[in-house]
């Protein structure tokens, strides 16, 4: 009898705790009565679960070397859903990635991606009266474009995660845009354009370097295009490019993948896949404009040196990351050491090597005095030649590996970082498991690989110089 009372007591306790916890956070259900219409599930292909130990190669202590279980489910229309369940986290992050970048925007559509993302953001964040319904749940929505894809990211509390997932899925599942939606988003994007900073030198470099390739454009919207696009044009573009078979939805954190997939399949199963093949523009290695001289209105000068670099999917990618790490990443890099520490030539030194699905670039830059442009350029080229000739010592290689591995781990510390990188790997075609393979690939790079890859790609640089005197300056 006492045992029965004890069981009743514990059951009641459990019910009360769970019901109060649900009531504690103001959920959208209490604000908007949304009917939940769960259609018969279209499960598509069966779920596959893989376990990835992301941390073995870092040699981390056993306590944090936890395996992250990632489950992949695919709808019939090709939409991929990845869930990385982490029950100990107190957050949930959703990442919706679409393989639609600058390559899909024609030259007369530059900015369509940004406009569509703004519309989707508004759909997720606002109710029918344009009042915010996201912040009140303690959620954050962010959107962004890159050369290869568009991204919607939502961070939220576990208690509201299914609700936010439903809002996300319902937003992307409506391919038609109303005139009111487009007008509001247009105004918001144009407002943001006025205050946004645009890296003009980088844009000029891309234009010279890529020439006819779509990567010559940045994802930055163009005002006149944003002003004239119609809802019909935007809807047609959306249906064509934001197709489910070109999209990956990833969740990371304290959320049940099974429960989440019910919502995904109920809301997104009706999306129509795009059967067209993604057009890959062939890389044109012989760029015409190798040296560009610009007038700078500032008192400083910029020197940019850009080279070809392998794509994310290339077998040379890891070795090129090592080269980037050695040349220009951080304060111990060769360019920093030579130009700033040893010679005091530079206010700023750095490099960038974006992870692109297509042909990428390694861009080294230095900001210096106008009278030092010549010697800065010579020293940059000398360091690159030295790397090609002599490569790296095993000690330097190991240090660069550690530097890159540290960055790799830090980028995946948050749930949104995890979701993003899993999604990017899946979207690239290599599979989400590829993201966890990077430390092993890094460990396999040898000094010989560094020399081989440097000599293969670091040839025929594109040079951009901007300084007060333009080309005509008495220093060379």
């Amino acid at each position, binding site marked *: 009898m006492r045992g029965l009372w004890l069981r009743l*007591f514990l059951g009641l*306790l459990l019910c*009360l*705790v769970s019901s*109060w*916890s649900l009531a*504690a*956070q*103001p959920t959208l259900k209490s604000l908007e009565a949304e009917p939940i219409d769960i259609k018969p599930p279209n499960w598509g292909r069966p779920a596959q679960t893989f376990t990835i130990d992301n*941390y073995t190669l*870092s*040699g*981390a*202590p056993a*306590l*944090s*070397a936890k395996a992250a279980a990632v489950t992949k489910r695919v709808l019939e229309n090709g939409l991929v859903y990845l869930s990385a369940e982490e029950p*100990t986290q*107190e*957050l949930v992050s959703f990442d919706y990635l679409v393989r639609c970048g600058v390559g899909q925007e024609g030259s007369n559509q530059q900015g369509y991606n940004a406009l569509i993302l703004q519309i989707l953001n508004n759909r997720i964040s606002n109710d029918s009266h*344009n*009042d*915010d319904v996201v*912040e*009140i*749940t*303690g*959620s*954050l929505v962010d959107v962004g474009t890159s050369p290869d894809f568009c991204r919607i990211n939502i*961070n*939220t*509390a*576990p*208690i509201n995660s299914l609700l936010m997932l439903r809002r996300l899925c319902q937003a992307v599942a409506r391919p038609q845009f109303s005139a009111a939606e487009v007008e509001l988003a247009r*105004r918001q994007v144009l*407002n943001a354009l*006025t*205050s946004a900073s645009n890296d003009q030198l980088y844009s000029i470099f891309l234009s010279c370097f890529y020439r006819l390739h779509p990567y010559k454009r940045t994802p930055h919207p163009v005002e006149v295009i944003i002003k004239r696009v119609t809802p019909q044009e935007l809807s047609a573009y959306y249906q064509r490019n934001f197709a489910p078979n070109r999209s990956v939805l990833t969740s990371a954190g304290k959320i049940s993948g099974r429960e989440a997939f019910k919502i995904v399949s109920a809301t997104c199963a009706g999306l129509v896949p795009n059967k067209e093949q993604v057009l890959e523009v062939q890389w044109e290695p012989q760029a015409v404009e190798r040296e560009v001289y610009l007038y700078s209105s500032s008192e*400083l000068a910029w020197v940019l040196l850009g080279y070809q670099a392998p794509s994310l999917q290339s077998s040379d990618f890891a070795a090129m990351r090592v080269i980037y790490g050695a040349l220009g990443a*951080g*304060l*111990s890099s060769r360019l920093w*050491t030579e130009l*700033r*520490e040893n010679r*005091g030539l530079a*206010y700023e030194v750095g490099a960038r090597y974006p992870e692109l699905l297509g042909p990428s670039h390694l861009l080294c830059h230095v900001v210096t005095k106008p009278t030092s442009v010549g010697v800065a350029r010579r020293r940059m080229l000398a360091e690159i030649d030295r790397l090609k000739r002599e490569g790296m010592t095993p000690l330097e290689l*190991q*240090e660069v590996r*550690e*530097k890159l*591995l*540290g*960055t790799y*781990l*830090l980028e*995946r*510390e*948050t*749930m949104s970082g995890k979701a993003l990188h899993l999604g990017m790997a899946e979207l690239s075609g290599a599979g989400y498991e590829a993201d966890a393979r990077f430390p092993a690939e890094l460990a396999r790079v040898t000094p010989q690989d560094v020399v081989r890859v440097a000599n293969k790609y670091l040839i025929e640089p594109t040079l951009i110089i901007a300084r007060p005197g333009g080309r005509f300056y008495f220093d060379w």
Partner: protein
Amino acid sequence: MRYQIVICGRWLSVFFLCLLWGATLAWGAPRADYYTEVLPNGMRLVLYENPRAPLCSLNIFCKVGGFEENIETMGISHFFEHLFFRGTPSLTGHQFKRAIEALGGQTNAMTSRDFTHYFINLPSRHALEGMELLADALKNAELDQEGIDQERNAVLEEYRMGLESPPRIVNQLVSEMAYGEHHPYSLPIIGTESTIRSFNRADFLKFRDTFISPERTTVIVVGDFRREPMLALLRREFANFTRPQRRIISNYAPIKPPAGEVQQVQSSRLPLSMVMLAFVGPSVHDKPEIYQVDVLSFLVGLGRGSLINRQLVNKGRLQEGGVQFATQRFPGLIGLYGVGQVGQEERIKKDLLSIVRQVCEGRFSDRDLRRAKAFLRSNHTFATETNAGLADNLGYYASIDDLHFVDTYLERIEAVSREDIIEVAKRYLAGGYYCVLLKGTPPAPKAGERAEREAKS
């Protein structure tokens, strides 16, 4: 039996209520299970084991910043921050940076009015080695003349870039008006070109010996590490860390808001105008007002659902707008700002003042208040998702008030009521204020437009 069940039921109800009240505050509340210790030399250690990822954040917070400067020394804390990682007797600056990066570490520093913060974030398997490097820099930063001269150029360049930044210009003007020339909060943290050029090695050595002392320093370690080895290392590294000079943290008379509006107009070359209204607010010591003003800031100007965004930005009356308020040791300024078209400065000011009146009169909904609190909570939670964010949160409050501020922060936020908001708005926003109008310059018409205008005229 029935009587016993009723008695038992009442106690059960009390028990349930206690449990569930705790559950409502569960989300986002930082675990207060960090370890603290004060060494014999006065240095405080805070260790928080967080094995979520194989990473660690190593931090040093020094209670010195703009607050300890005067008209001749303004900028020295920030300049010293640049010199922190420039080498010690055992490692040159380059070797130091190379050592940190060879451990997979990323390092940086920042200076505020109240403290300076140095940190290294790195894989946890190198946490002990990273801590040794950080400790070496704190105790033995060499401050050689060559390093000073090289960093001087970098600091000057940073100074020049700030001259073109409208928020920096407006904030500086407002600070000068509000704090007056005798208060260090009116001085720019970066200093001026002449003070930056004037500092020499002797100045930095004196600064280091006075202010980079154990009593003013808190070491915070957050991440996946083992407490005992880290504690042993910290005790060993800092056992003999002392400084010859001491200076008691200064205090100043409280500032009062002006009687009415105090306005200043400035021109800029940018194509937009910016207006800021600054009201004297609370300091970190003013409780519960500090929590109430945090909620007020989110209600009025932070997030898509804020009053400024919904009523002004979304309706096209502002390009951009919001509220800024920093919790500081000394009373901060609650700044409402708006960015809009050139020539609209007076209208922008009126719009912002109407929002102020609206809040003082209580013309906002309960939903607005719930949104503000939920959004504040989520910002806080997401900011403390990483080890670095957690450490930053702990160190921030440890430097300006008390470490345990963070233990009850979310609970105090949750307790803010509608009446509290109205009362705190009337206390801080209903009186006089400082106003800066930064008037932009309309962009020059393009060639086609110019020809069209000429043809019309």
